[in-house]
């Protein structure tokens, strides 16, 4: 079952003059075909300006296609009458937690979406408590958001989306402004939500985070140029470097060692695997020497 589907999606940013005439078109997406399955954990990679955020904003009708189609749960996002249904199905979390928290008290903010949807107060209470407990911020429910850490604030933002009970959450570089501790908290939360069956689309430029997904797509100049499992993607080191991306540090190490003639497999993704393979080789080497 697919939850998000784009068909030959094109998007141009239009730049207007003072009188409201289009003076320039800035093409940001060129024929993107992408299908996200229910329950999937998809990471989107790409360097700055490759169109990741633009693509993400099509997933819940914040932007509408210039050409092509986007479907959420088989609903066309251009269908104005069902836009709130779409936004409830696909929740969105942005980079800067400070700029997406509306209310001056945590629980009031988590309730914001439900208030907009006209949910009765008793049910709001129930759903926000559940959401706050799920992402482990319930103990701060009466706090002012600006007193919380970055990771906590980002989890408040996630709770605000979870309260809508979405099927899919799109996160646009949610860890970019966080310290390593906050990053870990947020990644842990994201993985836990995926295990609970929520579809995750994670836009990131941390390769280590992308390596934790089940599927990775790479974007360049407004198009998808690679699509596969993390192992498949990260084994193509040259191709990634050509579009200005890095590979995870361990993969890089393995790549350099392989280039130097060490016989390591091409698709090493984490430190444990790498250590194991290296141990085997070192042992063989020692055996050879003796």
């Amino acid at each position, binding site marked *: 079952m697919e939850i998000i589907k784009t068909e030959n999606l094109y998007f141009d940013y239009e730049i207007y003059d003072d009188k409201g005439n289009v003076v320039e078109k800035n093409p940001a997406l060129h024929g993107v075909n992408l299908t996200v399955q229910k329950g999937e954990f998809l990471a989107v990679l790409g360097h700055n300006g490759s169109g990741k955020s633009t693509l993400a*904003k099509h997933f*819940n009708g*914040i932007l509408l296609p210039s050409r092509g189609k986007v479907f959420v749960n088989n609903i066309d996002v251009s269908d104005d009458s069902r836009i*709130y249904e779409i*936004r*409830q199905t696909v*929740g*969105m979390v*942005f980079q*800067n937690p*400070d*700029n*997406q*928290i*509306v*209310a*001056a*008290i945590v*629980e*009031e903010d988590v*309730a*914001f*979406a*439900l*208030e*907009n*949807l*006209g*949910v*009765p*107060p008793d049910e*709001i*209470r129930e759903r*926000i408590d559940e959401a706050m407990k799920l992402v482990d911020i319930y103990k701060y429910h*009466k706090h*002012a*958001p*600006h007193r919380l850490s970055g990771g906590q604030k980002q989890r408040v*933002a996630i709770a*605000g*989306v979870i309260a*809508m009970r979405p099927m899919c959450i799109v996160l646009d570089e949610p860890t970019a402004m966080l310290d390593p501790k906050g990053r870990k908290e947020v990644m842990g939360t994201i993985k836990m939500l995926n295990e609970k069956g929520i579809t995750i689309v994670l836009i990131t430029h941390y390769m280590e985070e992308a390596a934790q997904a089940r599927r990775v797509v790479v974007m360049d100049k407004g198009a998808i140029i690679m699509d596969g499992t993390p192992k498949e993607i990260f084994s193509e080191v040259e191709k990634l470097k050509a579009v200005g991306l890095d590979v995870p540090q361990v993969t890089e190490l393995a790549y350099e060692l392989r280039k130097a003639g060490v016989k390591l497999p091409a698709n090493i993704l984490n430190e444990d695997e790498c250590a194991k393979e290296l141990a085997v080789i070192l042992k063989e080497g020692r055996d050879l020497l003796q």
Partner: protein
Amino acid sequence: MLKDITIGQYFPGDSVIHRLDARFKIVFSILAAAMLFTAQNFIGLGIAAVFIIMCYAVSGIRFRMILKSLKPIVPLIIFTGVLNLFFIKGEEILLSWWIITIHTDGLRTSAFMVVRIITLITGMSLLTYTSSPIMLTDAIESLLSPLKKLRFPVHELAMMMMIALRFIPLLIEETDKIMMAQKARGANLDAKGLIKKAKALIPILIPLFISAFKRANELAMAMECRCYRGGEGRTRLKKLKASILDFLAFGLILCVFGIIIANNFAF
């Protein structure tokens, strides 16, 4: 340094005053102000003052907070006091020295005005001390809701207040950061003279505005993503509810008001 400013200071609690409906509390505050301006003599003023102090006692807000609320208006108090003291003339001269003459009436009016201002501010502060900012914005939205019929954007006004309350601490923090960054680059922020001072503000205000607009843009998008579509059909997590307590308090205030009016006629 800027961080020390607190806005809409609220002291959470569970007293009777805290539990009153914020809408009623706003009305009570207006009545209390009216009461103070109705009182024509010290007895009336005294009754109102005792009533307000009793409210503080019930609310559990420490009396020290009264002094704190008065701090910003000390200049106003002194100004009012001095002005009335020297310029009100009566028949009886209390003191005359060099070019200064103080009349008994001057002293009386001066004292009366000072006590009135102090009581007024103390009373008004109790409103923000005992109601959370969100309760207050909700109450204002609810009290102004009849104006919706005249196409007055009541919901939008309340939403703006709510967002302002959320972003003021953030922007204050940001101003602090920008000031430090500009100082580190050699900006002279402690310049003397009005024009130089204004010029020194430019390198702070421009980055602050740019950042505020960027924030506004992102916030608008985040609100859209969470299905925001104006006040139509919106529900609230906490609904303001009037209870018997509010009506009892209303009765009590009307009684005090009545006593003050009666007192005006009696003396």
